[in-house]
């Protein structure tokens, strides 16, 4: 390797190890992330495109602003960030490890001068007696000391939570672990969706990116879907009853899934996501009676179909809902909007009839009184389907991150040295974090020692 090559590599290594790069990358990641929260991601809606010029659209597209978090330059930033974290850790870890595994056991006078906290006082007794006394004191009040003899003096060293120095590296490691988990998920997992009509099943789901079909290897049936509402009309619960059939056998039987309570089978998880009418020819049932009296007539019809009524007029169903309270909060339950056209034409009347209020329509004052008996219309349930084998790696990373943060912020490596000569004791102390707090503890310790 030539010198200039070596110089270049060293410069590159120093570049990646630098804290300045870390701060720069953190601020760049923060600043660029804003773009994707302002510009709509994915396929931009037409209303948005009307607000920007053609030139702007071209620039945004070229820079990948419509899928910013997967654009080459954002991914590059993330890779640089990872390399930076790893390089910084590799550079600093050996020194920290040395401080943990090979602590300075002897406080000589030169070392004493480097310590911020030292105390010096006289105490009766020869060196060996004092040594034993100090060792017992440290063991009881602080931590078990290591005793070294040098030149007729005894040196005691005790430390607490040396491993807290590793906290920051645990956090760095956790970020790398989370990235690995995310990569595993993106290579070996998928996000898909499927709509299942009540009473039917499927073994194929569709990838959310590109609608590619994915074979599950088993069948999921939706036995029933239901939705309930609060009195205010706000939705309370969406519930699907799912059955899983694998190899001809029912392995999960009518398990209810709701939002926030998914079903997992063979590493594939099904989440309640949406619902809607299946749209295929359900029948709507009505009872019609004449105001002047007579037997009520029952009739059933499909949406859009026109049926003749006893008095010669005709009706059709315009729309229907399983739960009307989301549109008309004062009413609950199923409802249908119907159109009645008088005999021989004329202005049609449009009104709503409710299943839970059978007498409501009599107040309308028409010659015919309608009540709604509901429909046998089928619903479909919309499920999100996800497989992510990397998710446990991500959770491991998250756990490490929390542990690392606590180690890094709330624990410090506290060290105490004691040098004992005949009739003379010198204490030194140091903590790598929260020095003011340690100073108080150190002073309290010295006071206690003097009282002995």
């Amino acid at each position, binding site marked *: 390797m030539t010198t200039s090559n070596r110089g270049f590599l060293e410069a590159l290594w120093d570049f990646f190890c630098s804290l300045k790069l870390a*701060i720069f990358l953190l601020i760049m990641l923060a600043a660029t992330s804003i773009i994707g*929260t302002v510009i709509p991601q994915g396929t931009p809606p037409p209303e948005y495109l009307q607000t920007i010029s053609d030139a702007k659209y071209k620039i945004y597209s070229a820079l990948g602003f419509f899928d910013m*978090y997967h654009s080459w330059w954002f991914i590059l930033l993330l890779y640089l960030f990872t390399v930076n974290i790893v390089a910084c850790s590799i550079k600093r870890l050996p020194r920290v490890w040395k401080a943990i595994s090979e602590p300075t056991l002897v406080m000589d006078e030169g070392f004493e001068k480097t310590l911020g906290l030292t105390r010096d006082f006289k105490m009766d007794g020869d060196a060996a007696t004092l040594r034993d006394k100090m060792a017992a004191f440290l063991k009881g009040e602080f931590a078990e000391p290591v005793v070294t003899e040098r030149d007729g003096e005894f040196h005691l060293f005790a430390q607490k939570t040396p491993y807290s120095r590793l906290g920051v590296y645990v956090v760095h490691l956790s970020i790398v672990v989370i990235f690995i988990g995310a990569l595993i998920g993106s290579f070996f997992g998928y996000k898909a969706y499927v709509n299942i009509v009540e009473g039917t099943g499927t073994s194929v789901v569709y990838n959310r990116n590109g609608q590619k079909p994915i074979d599950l290897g088993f069948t999921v049936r939706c036995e029933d879907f239901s939705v309930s509402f609060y009195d205010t009309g706000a939705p309370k619960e969406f519930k699907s009853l799912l059955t899983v059939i694998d190899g001809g056998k029912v392995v999960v039987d009518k398990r209810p899934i709701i939002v926030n309570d998914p079903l997992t089978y063979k590493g594939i998880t099904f989440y309640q996501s949406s619902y809607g009418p299946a749209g295929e020819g359900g029948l709507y049932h009505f009872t019609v009676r004449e105001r002047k009296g007579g037997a009520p007539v029952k009739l059933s019809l499909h949406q859009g179909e026109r049926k003749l009524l006893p008095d010669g007029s005709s009706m059709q169903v315009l729309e229907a809902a399983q739960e009307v309270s989301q549109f008309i909060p004062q009413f609950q339950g199923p409802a249908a909007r119907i159109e009645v056209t008088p005999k021989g034409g004329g202005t049609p009347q449009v009104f709503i009839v409710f299943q839970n209020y059978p007498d409501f329509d009599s107040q309308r004052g028409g010659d015919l009184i309608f009540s709604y008996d509901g429909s046998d219309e089928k619903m479909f349930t919309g499920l999100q389907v996800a497989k*992510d084998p990397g998710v446990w790696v991500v959770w491991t990373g998250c756990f490490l*991150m929390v542990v690392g943060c606590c180690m890094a912020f709330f624990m410090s490596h506290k060290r105490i040295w004691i040098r004992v000569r005949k009739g003379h004791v010198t204490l030194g102390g140091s903590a790598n974090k929260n020095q003011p707090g340690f100073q108080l503890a150190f002073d309290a310790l010295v006071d206690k020692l003097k009282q002995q």
Partner: protein
Amino acid sequence: MTSSMLFNIATFSYLISMLAFFAFLAVKSRQVGLAGSLASYFGFIVHSAAILLRWKESYDMGMGHAPLSNLYESVVFFAWTIILIFGIIDLKYKYRVVGAFVVPFALLGMAWAQLGLHSGIQPLVPALQSNWLLYHVITCFLGYAAFAVACGISIMYLIKSGKDESAASGQGGIIAMFPSIKILDDLNYKAIIIGFPLLTLGIITGAAWANYAWGTYWSWDPKETWSLIVWFIYAAFLHARFTRGWVGKKAAILSIVGFAATIFCYLGVNLLLSGLHSYGGGG
């Protein structure tokens, strides 16, 4: 007694507390400072009772859920966490004067909530019906509150350091009561090292919940992204402290920028952008 009345009493207590702290800066009397602290503690107790009562009221109305489900409830809880973190700083580090720059944040939140936001108890939509709601919201807001306290301290730092530069002689005026800039710098750091792990936990619990409810722990939703932006800024702050020239003034500015981003993450995203955290519409 309704929770709404208690919230009003708490708001009023914070007003008294803030005025007392301002008077404390001017007259430098220990008793006035103590009165400021006591008023905020009284407000905090009433505030806590009000939150619990509102929780109970939601059960009485038949839709029992923790009062953390809409903008009003979150602002009220945010104010509560700010006073909590201030109380810790006051009791642990004995820097009461910080209250003059922190209690106003809580008062602002409470006044806005009481006067400007819809305070009705609403039923929980299906997406929020989960225990994760509690863990996620509590950790996030404790983190936000620590950042609010750090921001207040940083403002004090900038005022103090500005005055120190312009008039080296002056130990008069309101800043005489301020702790030294070294202590303010340290308190700023301490507040942020409380906030940062809490924000981290808040993001993680949010990710865990999203994964449990929707099957994706991260979807670059604006709220998620902004919480990450806030995380990056404070991570930069923590690293900057190890670099020479980034303590003191620059750190104080970074702390204020961080809190501005926090507020945008909390309110701006809901009010200005669209996404999964839709409570912002209920203003």
